[in-house]
């Protein structure tokens, strides 16, 4: 597939005697939301941590944006454009929205011929506002520390940051956990917006309604193996549950 942004081939990762990911292959194309489903311990987080540079796979290949890659740190993956939105979000709660979106990449104004640099807070705020608006994220004040924001709003800030810096692939690990119902809807809406903008998303979840709400395809893992890959429109929750609990297994059926 030429338009595949991410290809994972026969990826394997074990910890001691435990094989957490056992020869999984998958593909993510531009502008598509792929759900990665599975019960706790199915290996979905380990798989994704191999892609985002937290773990190094024992075997297999990762091709990102047309080139084989090996990431030794999450920073490296980020530099390639793989943004992971973790549950802890990695935001500085004591700083405001603009400061967070531009953290580590601040916009500066030069004075005295470049001798003195000051922060361009107004400029960063303006850019932040634009990005938030384009994602239809509503945050009343961009100048308050983000600890005053709700969980969903903070989630949105993390996503806006990734969007502003041109993420080529967004990985979201259980993004609706710990959110109220209206906020869950907001985040799902945001995922749709991302897809419409052509940003591919891998959505890790064990909540079936979330998967059916936003994904184009779903991949189900069970005990480290990929047991199913379905187009979301052509499957149903009952079927997916059977895969998730190990009652059905396409890979074994094919073998």
């Amino acid at each position, binding site marked *: 597939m030429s338009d595949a942004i991410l290809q994972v081939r026969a990826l394997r990762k074990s910890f001691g005697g435990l094989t957490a990911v056992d020869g999984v292959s998958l593909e993510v194309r531009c502008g598509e939301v792929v759900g990665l489903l599975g019960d706790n311990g199915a290996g979905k987080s380990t798989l994704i941590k191999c892609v985002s540079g937290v773990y190094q796979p024992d075997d297999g290949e990762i091709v990102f944006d047309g080139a084989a890659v090996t990431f030794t740190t999450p920073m490296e993956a980020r530099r390639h454009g793989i943004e992971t939105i973790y549950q802890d979000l990695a935001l*500085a709660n004591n*700083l405001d929205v603009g*400061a967070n979106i531009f*953290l*580590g990449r601040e916009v500066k104004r030069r004075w005295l011929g470049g001798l003195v640099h000051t922060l361009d807070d107004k400029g960063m705020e303006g850019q932040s506002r634009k990005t938030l608006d384009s994602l239809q994220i509503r945050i009343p004040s961009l100048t308050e520390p983000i600890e005053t924001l*709700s*969980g*969903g709003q903070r989630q949105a800030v993390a996503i806006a940051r990734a969007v502003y810096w041109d993420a080529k692939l967004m990985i979201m690990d259980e993004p609706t956990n710990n959110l*109220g119902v209206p906020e869950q809807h907001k985040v799902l809406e945001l995922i749709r917006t991302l897809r419409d903008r052509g940003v591919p998303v891998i959505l890790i979840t064990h909540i079936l309604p979330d998967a059916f709400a936003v994904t184009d395809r779903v991949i189900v893992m069970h005990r480290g193996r990929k047991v199913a890959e379905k187009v979301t429109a052509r499957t149903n929750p009952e079927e997916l549950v059977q895969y998730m609990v190990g009652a059905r297994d396409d890979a074994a059926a094919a073998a």
Partner: protein
Amino acid sequence: MTDRGSTVARPGAHGAGASSSVQRLALLFSRMWAWLFLALMVLFFVVAVPLSTGGSVDFLTIRNSQNILVAIVPVLLLGLGQTFVLIAAGIDLSVGWVMSLASVLSALALRDSFNSGAPLPIAVLAGLAAALAGAGAIGLVNGSIIAKLKVPAFIVTLGTSFIVRGVAYLMSENSTVIGLPAGVRAYGNDALMYYITGPGGGLYFLNRPEVGGELLRRMEMIFPYPVLAAAFVVALTMFLLHKTQFGRHTYAIGGSMDAAVRSGIPVDRHLIKVYILSSATAGVAGFLSTLRYTAGSAVIGDSLLMSSIAAVIIGGVSMFGGSGTVIGTVIGALIIAVLTTGLVMLNVDAFWQFIVVGAVVIIAVLIDQSRDLIMGKQRKGAAL
């Protein structure tokens, strides 16, 4: 907010923890209480001092206000550097003795360069350079061990404070460096302006008027040089903390080390710079004390460490990192100086000042914590 399923969608309701006006008011108070406290305290002494002395002594005179400003200079300078360190979620226990070492080093450099023929202004600059270089080196060592070897800041700076103490004593040979040129006195004690009240008086700039007797007693100094120097450092640190990337990264590291690292901030290098800055402001304090006393002293900074940390805490810098301002530290230092001066003028036993300052520190932290309570948050443990 976090309760799945029970949340009713109210437009505009999801969001800000500080939404009600009562919360906003309480929040405002918790942020501004130090200003309020300082104002009330000044007001109290303005009323109480004349009352207790039968009207013969006033609190808010030119002389007294200038005395207070001169008194806060060393505590303030130590506190300014410490402000950055605490915001970055560290602590620097070495600044007191770094100030002492800087005082000794600057006295030696000043005396020796003057004795080998350098003109006085050059010798004074050599003293400043020696103070900054010596102090900066200690900061570099502190920061490197803390950032690169991951030893807790508390331990590292405790260790270096002992080492620096030893070095300062050894270099001063008997705790005091004397024999400085007499002209140094003017650098450390003269003022920007002089004002002679009453008949035959007037306002003089830069040059100390050559008067004696009655006129001398009526002469007031306005903005002594050490105060100007401290004001310059205040402006510089204010700019650095609130207007530059350096300040932003300091807040980020203290607020969330994880976020700072993942944002690609060079955390190790930044922390080293923060400890160098902390040492440098202590270095300036040591240098100014050498000018003030026309002598280098290896004991000058010892007693100031705790006062400086108290000033920073009263000023609202969080021990957990991530929040605080330069102006807060200035207010904190002013509160301590006003308190001390006022109590002395009320003829209260000098030892009471410690008891009061201690109480104010604890109250300051309680107010800081109540802010989190208002916001409905819990603090993580301190990472020293």
